């Protein structure tokens, strides 16, 4: 097991960061309410990455 803690940048979260995260989290819930599934979202994300 390698669980040595490395030096990371400090966590600094502003009020705006919290509000933005809360809004985005709720936006996802709304997507599900509209009938999108988590699988749909995964496939949409893959489609955006895809090189045809």
């Amino acid at each position: 097991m390698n669980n040595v803690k490395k030096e990371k940048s400090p966590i600094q979260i502003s009020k705006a960061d919290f509000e933005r995260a809360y809004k985005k989290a709720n936006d996802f819930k709304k997507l599900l309410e509209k009938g999108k599934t988590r699988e749909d979202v995964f496939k949409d994300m893959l489609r955006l990455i895809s090189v045809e």
Partner: protein
Amino acid sequence: MNSELLVNFIFDKASQLKIPIVIIGGLALPAYNVARTTLDIDISINISTQKQLNQFLLELNREGIKSLQNPKLGQDLFTVFGFKNEAEIWLKPCDAFEWDKEMTKKIKLYFGNIFVLALEDFILTKLARSDRSSTDISDILQILINNYKEIDWEYFRFRLNWANLESDFKEILQGIELEINEDLKKILIKILEQLK
């Protein structure tokens, strides 16, 4: 869709060889009720021998999925190319820690043949990253907001301790001292209570 084909073949081959495999990174987020754009396909496999890794690579090769590297067990990751797309395959779920039995046992089916890490372990992969960014912190916050009722707190506390990340996690919850939305504040209070 090419990237979907690539992912499906990689997961199929791992499944045939009984290799634990999960989607990690941004692409795994919808499994935890979060979404954002990402440009990467990140996958992690739990492989214990070079022979097993070679067999996996051989099987992928037969499907036209190739690595230009000569992947070795001690590496963090390697890249595979196929169907005009590419995926990064990590031999560790996070650059800060390796697979262990507990983590492997807890991986969960997302859909089809696609697996993801347990919610608690996924949060840990974001928190423990050596190049942790504000995007990782935002991902963690969103995961917490949409999943705090589903978290196995006993396991999560154990994992935070295992990775020496309790103080980092508590730093995220310091937002409780800010003038934030009341509903969000209630969620953070509930999470803090679980950490006591």
